[in-house]
């Protein structure tokens, strides 16, 4: 009970159903303030759905979410947005907005209806862009940027929102190795300074390296939760991901690392389909 004060995000028995399919099936999650939690799991495990449920984009049929002790159901979307930011997995089409214009949108939840951005709002946006190395294309429209650059602009917007809770849905999926490290180092620094972060990952080693705790999901349920050392093991990876793997502490970085050996026994390989030219003539 006394840890409730320290709780940034909590989900109790979350269940969400679409067309007789339970995307979330009784999920419990608790994230402390200043903690970075990684969600891992195969495609369709419910990672994105859980993030969307926590952010209030999606209202679950069952269960409850509390943010910093407040029931999400009783909060306005604007209240939520002033304290919580979500970096989407796929950046939406941006209709000719420039990077700067998009990042400035991160200030909207903090503005009154009749207000426009002040100089300090612009400074916050500029700082967020500098931190994500996106200031160089501040005045370019987003459709002229590469996928990774665009993803970083959306991270910048989330930072400009100055959230206390940051949700990231595969934040590094489009990033080159350098920027993967840069963005996650940045998030990690912010977490060490008090931010709470929940992020979905596909790269298990990256998740293990940056997160305090991992939450393993499969079929809309939480299978395991705990520090990477406790959670990541070949048996679990084989059960959840259907992949044979070796788990060891990387001698260079010192963090838990997963080497993927191959599909687990009994997993049928993708059928050998001949492509185009070979079969045509």
């Amino acid at each position: 009970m006394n840890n409730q004060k320290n709780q940034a995000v909590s989900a109790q028995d979350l269940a969400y159903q679409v067309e007789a399919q339970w995307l979330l099936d009784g999920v419990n999650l608790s994230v402390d303030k200043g903690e970075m939690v990684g969600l891992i799991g195969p495609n369709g495990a419910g990672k994105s759905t859980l993030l969307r449920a926590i952010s209030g984009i999606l209202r679950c049929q069952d269960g409850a979410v509390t943010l910093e002790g407040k029931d999400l159901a009783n909060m306005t979307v604007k209240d939520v947005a002033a304290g919580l930011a979500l970096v989407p997995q796929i950046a939406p089409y941006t209709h000719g907005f420039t990077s700067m214009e998009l990042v400035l949108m991160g200030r909207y939840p903090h503005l009154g209806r009749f207000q426009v951005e002040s100089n300090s709002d612009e400074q916050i946006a500029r700082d967020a862009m500098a931190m994500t190395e996106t200031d160089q294309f501040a005045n370019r429209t987003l459709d002229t940027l590469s996928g990774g650059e665009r993803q970083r602009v959306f991270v910048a917007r989330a930072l400009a929102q100055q959230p206390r809770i940051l949700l990231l849905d595969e934040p590094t999926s489009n990033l080159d190795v350098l920027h993967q490290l840069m963005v996650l180092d940045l998030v990690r620094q912010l977490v060490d300074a008090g931010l709470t972060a929940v992020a979905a990952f596909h790269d298990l080693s990256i998740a293990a390296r940056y997160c305090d705790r991992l939450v393993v999901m499969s079929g809309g349920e939480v299978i395991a939760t705990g520090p990477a050392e406790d959670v990541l093991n070949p048996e679990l990876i084989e059960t959840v991901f259907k992949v044979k793997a070796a788990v060891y502490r990387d001698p260079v970085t010192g963090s838990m690392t997963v080497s993927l050996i191959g599909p687990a026994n009994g997993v049928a390989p993708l059928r050998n389909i001949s492509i185009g030219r070979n079969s045509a003539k």
Partner: protein
Amino acid sequence: MGRVRPGKLTRKPGDLPERKVTTLRIREGPSSFGDRPDKSDTKASGGEKPEVFLLRAIGLDRIQTYRQAGVAARLAVGSGILGLLVLGAALLSLSLGPVEIPVSHVASIILSSVRLDFGEFGRTEQLVIEQIRLPRIVVGACVGMALGVAGATMQGLFRNPMADPGIIGVSAGGAVGAVAAIAIGATGAFFLALPVFAFVGAMAACFLVYGIAAVGGRFSMATLLLAGVAVNAFLGAVVSAIIIILPDNEALREILFWLAGGLDSRTWEHVQIAGPFILVGIFVILLMTRDLNLLMLGDDEARSMGVRVGPTRIILLAAAAMATGAAVAVSGTIAFVGLVTPHVLRLMLGPDHRVLVPMSAVGGAVFVLLADTVARTIIQPAEFRVGVLAAFVGAPFFIFLLIKNKRQAYSL
């Protein structure tokens, strides 16, 4: 695709010579298949985008600088330029016509109405201005504002630059209302019957379309669009049916005139009928332009940035429908203003609705005033229809823009 050249690909960036080596350049998009020159080639050969040309024409070619300025500064510059255009168009329109009135007299007449003695003018001139041309211009400006703002709103809500204020059935509904009023002879009994019937028709059609999209409790913009298309087709058929079975040739001519959209013999009463609805509609939309920016990025995005998506969208739709309905009621269907105005302004000013919506209001007014002035004077003493002229000019210009900007592509 092209052959792989390992030797060149493994070169370090530092090894590259300073000057541009065109063979090394990796081309983007469809150009990589070889037959079309890419963007930088076009630029080098002096090709200029129309928006850049337009900006240069009005002395505002530093589009980047403009877009970097704050909202207030952008609004000030934009409304300054467009405001002057409105003023010019209005003075021109007041001065031209069967009775030519010098601009200086026009100015004196207007100033005299606020008790400012400025110069000489004739009594007839004063009557022509105050009772004929001024109400017409005010109606035209209101209609242009309504269509421009509603167009910008619909394009934002539908995330589609092809959306038009008529998309949710208001124009077709207004047409049915107006045609019905003429057919049953209500216009003879009460001269404001036409706009009142048209407004009622417009609102009814809008509610019908919205009701279809909201059936089953789950509202969807895609259903709204399709319901709009279906209702528009149905109401179009109703109008045709009435025209076919109508025995009265005079009424028929009146109907065709109304359908072509016009501002002839508009009075201050028309301003009183439509003005409040249009101004309230525009005001409501102006309060929600920031939400419109976020809605353009998608429902999830908007929600995660603090927009109550459902109510916001309904209020915006209702406000746009009300303004358009009022505009249609007093002017008939004026095509293309609502489509072209926000579109052109977006190319010039960027997509930020906090600037785009107010500018679309002023831009729409300029468009309608100029089109009406030309329509009024081009085949004197007869009068061309402003709706026809707007489409005559608007459609080719729009096609020109489409072709010019094809590469920038829309998300369709």
